[in-house]
């Protein structure tokens, strides 16, 4: 699977996040001859256990994240950040949770945006919102030809620098930074996979939740 990186827009102190930055990002990509392809949706749900019995509290996880992408309906990923676990599951597992009444959806973040083709790169720009409140703007960058993280590290770093420069010249209200989780903690290999994506997005969510507007 092609390698991906996630850029998180960090507004400066005192500046409120609006959809303006989302529009600006889209415009930048279009000006650079990126080709708009389609709309995208995804969501991350934070699950919390429904405790029926006091004794259960000790040995179960407090929370975990479930990630799904609209363009991959048969893929569902779960991340337990506290235990550094990530796994793929069947797509009907959330409905099983509902039926079993074992876990409830505590927080849901919706990702909405567009996909662009930019040479050998595929760019996705998302507005991250929690029940109509804009929480963050993120950009996913995918380099299609190669799947090795190590080999593409320098290349992706340079790409990030290019975009950082471009955006800082367009607007002074903030900057992008690269979300770079430590994949080794999750026992993930150099070959990029959906599990890596899940870890990326879970980090993004954590970042989004920590910046409270």
């Amino acid at each position, binding site marked *: 699977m092609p390698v991906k990186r996630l850029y998180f827009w960090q507004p400066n102190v005192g500046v409120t996040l609006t959809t303006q930055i989302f529009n600006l990002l889209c415009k930048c990509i279009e000006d650079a001859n990126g080709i708009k392809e389609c709309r995208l949706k995804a969501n991350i749900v934070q699950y919390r256990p429904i405790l029926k019995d006091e004794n259960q509290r000790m040995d179960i996880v407090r929370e975990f994240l479930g990630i799904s992408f609209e363009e991959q309906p048969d893929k569902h990923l779960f991340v337990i950040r506290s235990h550094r676990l990530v796994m793929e599951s069947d797509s009907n597992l959330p409905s099983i949770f509902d039926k079993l009444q074992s876990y409830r959806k505590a927080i849901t973040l919706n990702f909405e945006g567009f996909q662009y083709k930019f040479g*050998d790169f595929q760019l996705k720009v998302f507005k991250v919102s929690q029940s109509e409140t804009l929480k963050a703007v993120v950009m996913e960058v995918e380099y299609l030809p190669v799947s090795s993280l190590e080999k593409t590290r320098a290349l992706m770093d340079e790409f990030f620098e290019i975009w950082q420069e471009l955006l800082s010249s367009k607007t002074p209200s903030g900057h992008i930074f690269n979300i770079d989780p430590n994949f080794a903690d999750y026992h993930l290999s150099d070959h990029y996979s959906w599990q890596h994506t899940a870890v990326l997005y879970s980090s993004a969510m954590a970042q989004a939740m920590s910046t409270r507007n």
Partner: protein
Amino acid sequence: MMQQQPSPNIASPSTSFLSPRSSPLFAASLDQENPNTPYEYKPGDNNNNYVQYQQESEEKENEKQAPPKQVAQAMERLAQAGRLVAQFRMGGDRFTEALFTGLSLKQRDPDTDKVTVQLIASEEASMRNCLEELRTLGMTLEASGVMIGALQRLQESPSWGLHMPLVCPDGAVVAYAWKRQLAGQAAASAVDRTRLALKAFTDQKRRFFPHLEEHTLGNDSDGEIHSTKRPCTSLLGIRNRKQDIVNESDQELSLSDVLKCVDADAPAMKISIYQRLEWFKKASSLALKGNSFLELSKQEQSQPLAKLGTQTGGQTISGSVPLDQISVLDVYVPSVFRAIISLTPAGSTIPDAVAFFSPDEVGSYMHARGVSIHNIYQQMSKYGEKVLQYFVRVRPQSSLDLLLRWLNTYQSLFTKPCSKCERILAMDQVSALLLPPVIRPHQDLLLHKNPSSVLTTNAKDPSTDVEKAFHVGCLVEEEYIL
């Protein structure tokens, strides 16, 4: 000598030339003196000296020799004249070649003016020499009376439009060449007979055994099967000097030698061998299943190259692809690229196409003339075609070896910055794409004496290698033109 009346219609073969009525040779006296001191041939002698000496000595001897000797001498001189004519024709050939070489050298490097002028001048001088010799020889022949009366003889004895006398390649003098052929005497000399026999044999072989013909490509110096003209060897010296190619590395290697060599020196590059149809089936089946080559390698092992070493002189490798049917090479550098090379004819070391793909790409379009869906590999494929044509043109015997060594330089495709702008990503103005440096210079590969030294240097110590990389837009045209 006998008095013979030459017949008005037919001049008999043996006497028309020697007719006493018109040949002054027989009018000469028969006195003989002691033979002159023999002429010692020194290797550095110009032909002119020898001819001059002959001329002088013969003028003295003319009156002294018996007619048969004079005839023999005349025949010898005529033969020499024939040789000079042939030399002149070859000289014309070489002159044309010198012009073409000069032109191509000039296109490549404008500083070669002196060399080309020298070359052309030397060919012109040698042709002029030939003409001079021919002229001198002609004068000698005329002096000895060979030419006298030839025109009258021709006019006097109308011979139904056929010109006589005809001197055959083996020296016999006849009126009509076809007469000899009819009599079965046409190839009277052993050389001619052998040559005719060989021609008949090759014609038959070509008719009845067409599949054997491909093995004889390049081996036949006769030029019958070989369709391209081989340049004269003296001109090659100029080309080699100019490009600084070391001839000792230009030995002909077999396919298995090349693969073993590369396997040993570039362990990061994995080469798999296939028959042509086998490759297409594999590519299509993977595309249908949606697997990747990575998953496939876990399920089944592709032909490991170690098996190549176990063959004991037979054609086949144990249980896998026969050596003479290998036509597709799959060169895989993990996480960097996959290159497909096609060999024509099968089992040879002559590549005819190369294409690059992503290491994870699958599709039935993946073959040596296919196009990748990624821009970076498309650019590499375009450049690769040019480089391949260059190698095949300049060093055909080791073109596969050179190509594989050149592919090996791409291991650093995503990690080595451009030697000019020192960045990895750069915007290509033509295609408006951000691309890493996809150009790897290939001329340097030809300069190395030992082919394997380049590979070992790159594989073991990438920090000290001198290989350069360029973006398409950063390539300096004057330095690296094809």
